[in-house]
């Protein structure tokens, strides 16, 4: 498709290559580090060729301060946050896109506005609130806090998908005696499958990668992997190779999801741009 302009495509490829290198370098570096001994890590100048070891992985998986429980924590929090987000976001986005009610625009703006607040400003109120109800260091507490920002985000993302469905389609379904619920189930939801997939992925990844709320509102019982990586950084020494191995494990699901859902994600990112560019 770019065959006619070899120069242009070459230049584009070069730019993309440089960009990719900048992005990928830390990951590669981390990957290499995770297979080094702690001594090789500190070697200066850095060594590119070394005898790889699996000790770090052995340590972070089976060792005294294994991060496996933390991976589990992350999974529980992220999954439940994602589940509840989608549970509420789908009907809410549908309502926002469809039903006529007073102050609809105002509520739409509110949803977006919550996305603009810097989360740091909220951390102390959240802490105090959770403390009051005994929600610190609990799965439900952290999940609840994740909902406060993932829900508006998910609603906002989903609304545009619902708005793409013509009103008459629903009316046709109503005349076909589907009723409101079955209309949603048989006619609406199948058409926003892509949107649901994208939103689910984004919400899950956001929760999985979250650090700040997890470190403050979590604790000994609920300690997601993003926080637990710091187990290997102590006052006396920093075990960089272990940190790297832990980071690689934590990144694994993210990368897998990324590879798996590449197409959906790209579509989700450009949803505004492609809106209406598809059918009809």
């Amino acid at each position, binding site marked *: 498709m770019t065959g006619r302009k070899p120069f242009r495509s070459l230049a584009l490829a070069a730019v993309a290559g440089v960009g990719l290198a900048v992005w990928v370098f830390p990951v590669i570096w981390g990957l290499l580090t995770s297979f080094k001994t702690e001594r090789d890590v500190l070697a200066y100048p850095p060594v590119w060729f070394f005898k790889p070891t699996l000790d770090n992985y052995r340590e972070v998986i089976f060792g005294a301060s294994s991060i496996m429980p933390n991976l589990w924590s992350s999974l529980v929090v992220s999954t439940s946050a994602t589940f509840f987000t989608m549970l509420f976001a789908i009907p809410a986005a549908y309502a926002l896109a469809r039903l006529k009610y007073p102050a609809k625009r105002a509520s739409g703006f509110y949803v977006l506005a919550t996305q603009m607040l810097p989360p740091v400003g909220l951390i102390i109120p959240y802490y105090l609130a959770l403390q009051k109800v005994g929600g610190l260091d609990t799965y439900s507490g952290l999940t609840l806090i994740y909902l406060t920002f993932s829900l508006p985000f998910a609603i906002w993302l989903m609304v545009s998908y619902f708005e793409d469905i013509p009103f008459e389609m629903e009316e046709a379904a*109503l005349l076909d005696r589907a009723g409101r619920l079955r209309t949603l189930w048989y006619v609406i939801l199948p058409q926003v499958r892509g949107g649901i997939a994208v939103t689910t992925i984004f919400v899950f990844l956001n929760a999985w990668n979250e650090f700040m709320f997890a470190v403050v509102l979590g604790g000994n019982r609920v300690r997601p992997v993003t926080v637990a990586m710091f187990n290997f950084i102590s006052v006396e020494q920093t075990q960089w190779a272990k940190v790297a191995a832990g980071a690689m494990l934590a990144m694994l699901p993210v990368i897998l999801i990324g590879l798996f859902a590449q197409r959906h994600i790209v579509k989700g990112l450009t949803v505004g741009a492609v809106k209406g560019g598809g059918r009809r």
Partner: protein
Amino acid sequence: MSGNEAMRASASVRIEGVVKRHGTTTVLHGVDLAIEPGEFFVLLGPSGSGKTTTLRILAGLEPVSDGRVFMDEVDVTMREPGERDVAMVFQSYALYPHMTVAQNIGFPLKMVGTPSVEVAAAVNEAAAKVGIAHLLGRTPGQLSGGQQQRCALARAIVRQPRLFLLDEPLSNLDAKLRMETRLELHALQRNLGATTVYVTHDQEEAMTLADRIAVFMDGRIVQVGTPREVFSTPRTIEVAGFIGTPAMNFVSGAWSGATVTVAGVPLAVRASTDQPREVKLGVRPNDLRIVAEGLPARIERIEDLGDSCIVSFAAGESHLKLKSDRLHPVKEGDEVRLAFEPGAEHLFDAQTGARL
């Protein structure tokens, strides 16, 4: 299904004093209609006159602000769309894009719990009736406009509803396909015998399809009648101007006896009056003649349509059109005189626009 069953299935429809308001604007000012079982009834009117609104009220998709809707003399004003046993073909077709043609057509049956074997049979039958039996496995996105339209039609007839509602179902098709489909639609409706309410702003479509036409103007029904009645005796000057292409010619004149005097020229009419008054005189382009004695006019333009021609004139303030099968031996810029056979005239009150 037998013709008998179909006849039994079709409903009579009556609406009484239906008013529809959106906020402070009133879009229907008290509409009354009575539609016979099995009738092909067309709602005709210019854009924004309230046709779609009326149709949606029949479907139950739009609540009335006032008035009542009856089907088979049962008050259904408050019933949900699904409870009225009506099927509708939307202007946009509203096909479900994620389902195949077969699933689309079968959907109304699936929703009422019809066993899948029966659904399949009914889907095949309906698809065959509209000629898309070979397309059942495709999705709507893989169909042409005409095929989509048929699919929507099949989805509407599959359930054998008591009432069909169609909102400009042909408007997305090109001219040729529109003509063909119009004929098929007519045949299909006759075959099914179901009461049909059909919305269009295309008067030609209305004339060819309708048993009766209701003409809408500004949220009111101004005339109900057979196509012939509406064409030959329009009740108001608006209806007269709306129905027929090219549109009827109008000139102002003074009517007394059996003469209408236009710009000082007396023109003979069949109707006679003993109360002289100001009128609007309407003559259809087909009825206008170039003659030796009559209204002076200058030819502005001659359009040759192949099998006929349309001649445009300027006569004083007014612009007139004449339509004729044969090409007149005249040319643009010629000064001619125009008249019509007495009886071809339509006279309307100059103030109210009502037919006299």
